[in-house]
């Protein structure tokens, strides 16, 4: 049973003028578990990830990393302390090679930016992390390819690889399965399963089948609020959740 909580959200709220996109959401991300957040479009899922990762400041509430309050930390600082994320819309660097994409992400942890005489392409630390990230996501054969020329599924894998290259403890993944066919989805799910040990994973997803296959815990969001949270079967049986998804054949 997973014990230590890596990332915790307590009453996180985010307002945009009159609109409350995230309303007092609390959840825990323990090590060794996959926590899925599902909900209809506009439920506030992406905004939640943005607040947890530090891209957007919280209007109220707090975010804790290993018990430490990081609510006012800027995003780069959170990333350096182990909060990694991937994006819903692919944000790989199209002109760089797959290897360089991962290596550059890994470089964030050992910047030594003043060492202008050294050659980045020979930096052992970042290269090692990059190769490891590519190995886990199955991209080693594509290392020299320009990221812009990859197929969609491969780009989504690279998106995860870049997140892994920063050696995070917490992975905040925003719709990693977006636009994937069944084969690619299987590959991605087995990757996520292999990542479960040692990491805390937050997964925002629309693909219900995939969610029920991989998640240890599910939180359902509607209109920015948490509707239900718990183990998958409990959530599935919850009548409020069923009502909210009335007509959704996949549930």
């Amino acid at each position: 049973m997973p014990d230590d909580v890596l990332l915790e959200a307590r009453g996180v709220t985010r307002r945009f003028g009159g609109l409350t996109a995230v309303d007092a959401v609390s959840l825990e991300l323990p090590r060794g578990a996959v926590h899925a957040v599902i909900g209809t479009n506009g439920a506030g899922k992406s905004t939640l990830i943005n607040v947890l990762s530090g891209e957007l400041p919280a209007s109220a509430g707090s975010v804790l990393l290993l018990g430490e309050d990081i609510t006012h930390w800027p995003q780069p600082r959170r990333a350096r302390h182990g909060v990694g994320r991937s994006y819903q819309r692919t944000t790989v660097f199209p002109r760089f090679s797959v290897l360089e994409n991962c290596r550059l992400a890994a470089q964030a942890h050992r910047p030594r930016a003043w060492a202008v005489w050294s050659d980045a392409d020979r930096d052992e630390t970042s290269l090692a992390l990059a190769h490891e990230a590519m190995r886990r996501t199955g991209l080693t054969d594509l290392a020299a390819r320009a990221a812009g020329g990859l197929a969609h599924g491969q780009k989504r894998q690279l998106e995860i690889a870049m997140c892994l290259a920063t050696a995070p403890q917490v992975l905040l993944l925003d719709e990693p399965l977006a636009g994937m066919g069944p084969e690619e989805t299987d590959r991605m799910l087995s990757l996520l399963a292999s990542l479960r040990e040692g990491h805390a994973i937050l997964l925002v997803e629309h693909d219900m089948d995939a969610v029920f296959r991989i998640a240890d815990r599910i939180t359902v969001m509607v209109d920015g609020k948490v509707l239900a949270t718990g183990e998958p079967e409990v959530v599935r049986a919850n009548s409020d959740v069923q009502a909210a998804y009335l007509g959704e054949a996949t549930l």
Partner: protein
Amino acid sequence: MTRTLPVALAVVGLAVFPWLGGKFYVDLAMTVMILAIFALSLELLVGRTGLVSFGHAAFFGVGAYATVLLSSKSAAPSLLWLLPAAMGAAALLAAAIGALSLRTRGIYFIMVTLAFAQMAYYVFHDTKLGGGSDGIYLYVKPVMGLGSAVWLDLDHPLPFYFFTLGCLAAVFAFLAMLSRSPYGHALAGIRANEQRMRAAGFSTYPYKLAAFIVAGALAGLAGFLYAVKDGFVNPEILAWHQSGSVLLMVILGGIGSWRGAVIGAFAFVALKELFQSDVVFGAFARHWQLLLGLTIIAAVALMPNGLIGVAAQLRARRRASATKIAHAG
């Protein structure tokens, strides 16, 4: 990004040029080299980091004015402290302007850099600091020496030519090395997608500020050389036309390439000479800015990747037709 053979050839070519060309063309070559350093410094900002600055002339101007103002009127100042001092003055201004401007993004950044450069222009134009709109003279050119022995006297054209060439080569090599370093790679990442870099853990502001300061210092070096070459500075070198010209050089040569910046400087000087030539345009040469304006519009519209981009396209087309011939045969 650098192909060694053409670069080496260019250096050799420039090195023997003083014995090949007439005085007018050698002087022009010196101008091209100085502007090439200026353009390279802006390429670091625009091409490498993605920061479009429309106020880069401020650092060129401050470097030039510092050179003149810090020199004594009687004895030849020593190169060994004057050059770093001029670059330092430019770097200091870049630190101040950069710290404020980099709080803005995108279009704001362009406007703010323009506005601050204009402020620097007014400082030199309206106050007594630099002799006002008339400008000031450099009375004695700097030398490099120890005690009474003079090793390098920049008052003489040949030593100055080679000193400038040496500076250009050093700046080029430095920037090439910077590109390969982790810092250079980080700048490239910031240009591609700053948000993604932040998500990976890079605090991007210090990286950008450092690039801004280095670019400012290098522009100051170009300013130093400019002041020594002609022995005269006036506020127009800080005017926004200067900022616009150096931006044009960078885009003319091709953004994203160090060679492009040098080529762009050469192309700009060549075009300006052409448009101002009485021989070609007669009395209309007075209105050379009209042709320059039309050229800028045409260049940006038709050659968005600059001359380097055009060369690459031609090479690609030649390769494609060679493949076609190979397949047909």
